[in-house]
């Protein structure tokens, strides 16, 4: 019998090979489904095209949006006939970041829709609701925004169109996000037609903090300086330039703002005084592909580590074919470069946080209606984008901006500030103007917050954005810290 058994075994070898291949295929199906449910599910549920939530919304009362201090930013009121009305107690204050939930959705109302529609209440509670013919209660969203700071930022921006972002550089937590012009989300159904009307510009719905693309102006000198430091790690301190107020390019003439003449200066001084001609000259000397590499490492032309709110992608277009003039203008933040205030806040946070960019976040936690914590956000590192040495050098330069340069308006405070101003000239539809930028952080030794301000048509950074930032820093140290 033995030989025959051997033969039988040999005869089945190919069957066994085949069956293992197919077993592996079947198991790969199961593994893929497990992976899908762990890694892809949330993203697919939040997909903008996903209509599944509409079906759910009919039997769930939408959860509330609250701050960590318990202030309600949005909640649903149900009348005796079962009609649901969404209430925004702060009116237009959180219009863009919290968004609206009628006539479509925007802001957190859109991106966290599936969370607000999902009920993580205990099964027993859900069953009781169902038995009583009551709708189930969606989960509550606890957001990182601070109502006091948001109000201060909103007040400080005043009547300017533009945006303010306040965030913690060491955690990525966003404390305030203001965009103007704004709207009252309570009145969206009535205001809708006039708001989306082309004649009215239709731009009040745009969240300028994350979706507005602006020329960065001199705030971009942070990255130009970084590119220069990387190209001259040993001798950047020997940099010397004699500013005569203008620099002749091939077809254009670069001028320092307001015709100022800065005279003989080193790199630190050129940065502090925001000397355009010095940076234009740096631009002509930089290796274009290295410069581009630095810009792209800081996520120009790339997506940001943000998934809670829609944003625009910043643009940096310098390449090997660019002309000398383009290199010059790009180096001091004009040229074709475009950036969002959120992105500028992230770059500033990276400097403040020793070179590490944190993933920004707005949702601190999710709680079920009966108060159980469903999930809690943890600060996440995006990447180390510059060395500690580089971040310290840039911090020192940015502190000079405040102590002796264009940010001097912030030098008399009882907290230290490091930052960079920007006066971004633009031309659109034949009209020209200057957007006012400031981006910086306070308590330089152990940074507390980053504040990024953009005031459209605000003139120089010093005249408009710096005083706005000053009010926000003061509010933070008076009421929040």
């Amino acid at each position, binding site marked *: 019998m033995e030989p025959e058994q051997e033969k039988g*075994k040999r005869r089945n070898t190919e069957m066994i090979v085949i069956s293992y291949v197919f077993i592996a295929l079947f198991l790969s*199906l199961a593994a893929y*489904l497990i992976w899908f*449910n762990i890694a892809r599910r949330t993203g697919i549920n939040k997909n903008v*095209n996903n209509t599944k939530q509409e079906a759910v919304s009919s039997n769930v009362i939408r959860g509330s949006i609250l701050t960590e201090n318990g202030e309600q930013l949005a909640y649903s009121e149900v009348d005796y006939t079962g009609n649901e009305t969404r209430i925004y107690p702060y009116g237009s204050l959180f219009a863009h970041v919290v968004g609206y939930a009628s006539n479509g959705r925007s802001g957190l109302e859109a991106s966290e829709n599936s969370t607000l529609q999902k009920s993580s209440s205990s099964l027993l509670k859900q*069953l009781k609701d169902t038995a009583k013919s009551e709708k189930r209660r969606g989960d509550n969203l606890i957001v990182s925004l601070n109502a006091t700071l948001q109000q201060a930022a909103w007040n400080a921006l005043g009547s300017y169109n533009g945006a303010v972002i306040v965030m913690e550089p060491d955690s990525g937590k966003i404390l305030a996000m203001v965009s103007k012009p704004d709207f009252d989300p309570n009145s969206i159904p009535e205001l809708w037609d006039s708001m989306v009307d082309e004649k009215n510009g239709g731009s009040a719905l745009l969240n300028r903090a994350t979706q507005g693309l602006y020329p960065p102006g001199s705030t971009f000198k942070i990255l130009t300086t970084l590119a220069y430091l990387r190209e001259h790690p040993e001798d950047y301190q020997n940099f010397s330039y004699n500013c005569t107020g203008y620099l002749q390019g091939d077809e254009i003439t670069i001028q320092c703002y307001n015709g100022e003449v800065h005279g003989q200066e080193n790199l630190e001084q050129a940065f502090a005084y925001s000397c355009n001609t010095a940076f234009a000259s740096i631009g002509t000397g930089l290796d274009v592909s290295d410069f581009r590499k630095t810009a792209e490492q800081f996520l120009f032309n790339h997506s940001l580590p943000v998934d809670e709110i829609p944003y625009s992608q910043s643009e940096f277009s310098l390449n090997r074919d660019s002309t000398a003039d383009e290199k010059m203008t790009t180096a001091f933040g004009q040229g074709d470069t475009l950036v969002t205030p959120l992105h500028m806040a992230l770059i500033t946070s990276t400097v403040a946080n020793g070179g590490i960019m944190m993933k920004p976040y707005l949702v601190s936690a999710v709680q079920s209606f009966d108060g159980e914590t469903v999930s809690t956000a943890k600060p996440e590192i995006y990447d180390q984008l510059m060395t500690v040495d580089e971040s310290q050098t840039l911090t020192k330069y940015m502190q000079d901006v405040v102590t002796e340069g264009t940010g001097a308006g912030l030098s008399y405070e009882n907290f230290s500030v490091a930052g960079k101003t920007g006066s971004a000239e633009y031309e659109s539809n034949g009209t020209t103007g200057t957007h006012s930028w400031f981006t910086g952080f306070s308590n330089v030794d152990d940074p507390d917050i980053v504040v990024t301000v953009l005031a459209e048509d605000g003139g120089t950074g010093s005249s408009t954005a710096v005083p706005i930032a000053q009010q926000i820093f003061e509010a933070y140290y008076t009421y929040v810290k």
Partner: protein
Amino acid sequence: MPVSLTNLSTILAQVSKYLIIILMVIYTVQCYTVFRYRTKQSQSYVFTRQNVSMFIIHFVAYLIMFLDQQNIQIAVFYVIQLAYLLLALLLLTHLYPKSSRLLVNNMLMLIAIGLIMITRLTYASAVRQFEMEAVGTVLALIIPVIVRKAMGLTKLTWFYVFVGLGLLALVLVAARSTYGAKLSLSIHGFTFQPSEFVKIIFVFAVAGLLSGKKDRKRIIIATALAAAHVLILVASTDLGSALIFFITYLVMLFAATRNPFLVLSGVVAGILAAVLAYFMFAHVRVRVQVWLDPFSDYAGTGYQVSQSLFSIAAGGWFGTGLGQGSPTAIPVVQQDFMFSAICEELGGIFAICLILVCLSCFIMFINIAMKLENRFYRLVALGLGSTYAVQCFLTVGGDMKMIPMTGVTLPLVSYGGSSALATIVTFSIVQGLYTMRRDEEDKDEEEKYGQYGSYGQYPDDGYGSYGQKKQNSRVDPGPGNQSEFGRK
């Protein structure tokens, strides 16, 4: 406030979804653990418990649907199905006591799950599906007899070739176009998809061609004929079936020749053909594009797969509960995307169990193939097993966007009369082969049962300690095994 029936069904759907999942998990685990029991009696006990799980799932699901829709038709339909399932179970296990009980259980389980889901999606389709399955089950009672008696089945190679190629060619010429592919023939208002049945005929043809002498000429002829089948299907733009035929042929070729280089060159040829198809056919490029990023053309070509992903994601691990989701948002859900509908309403855990039940069927097919002595029948069982496995893989993988969508059905679970009928026939042919083999074994008492398989973990039904030395001492058939006892 009074609790209305609709509310009751919502509550029931919430609670019962966990019950359904637990029962399904138990059923699935038993598919794999049943053979650890040594006595036929205790195995039989486990098999019966599997049936109990099935009947409870079936009952609970129909109860939910009845309360939800409050349609007496559903209650009547349930009772008819219950009678069918009981009768089928009773007849299949008692008329053919030597057939694989696990395959019977799995077949009925898959039919039950399919009927539940199709009823939930479109009641009228479920009735048509049920009619076809009833016809199929009658065939299932006859086929094992035919397989055993008609020894001529092994000699009809050229008949199979001509019938198979002829039917496929007929479809290519005369079929009306459904969903971009020529699939079905309509005769006197009765629509059927010949490719579902040609799958079986094809396996018989290839088995006939490859079971004889294995000289080069023979292999070339077989390959040319298989290629003809595949090319006609490609011309009908039925790429899913073409792929099933192609892979099945390679599997059978490997089993017949044990030559890995032949298979390797087949795989290379297949990849070249796929690349060629990509550049030649716009609809292939579209499917690849949709696979890479369904959302880039969400409103157009990507809509179906996007909706499928939304369904799977909406279901998560536990599902929304039967009737609580919206799987009908997926176009052609009950044919091509049944798996996604199951994921949405019955949940990911249930769906994983379903994959494992299908795998259990495939393992049983292979296990039976390994026990068969006759080369022709070995190849038939193997070939049928691989058509089944490839089809499961293509549809489940396509629904999850793991692979590009090919548009084939999940056997027995998806809606499709031809597919259901052909699958039941497939199962019963394999059962027939198995019954025949076990009859032969019984005739030769000296036969050593352990010698046919080294498939240690997965021995066949009814035999005890498998793969051990004392193979000859068979488990004493207990009183619960009288029919087999009587046969001796």
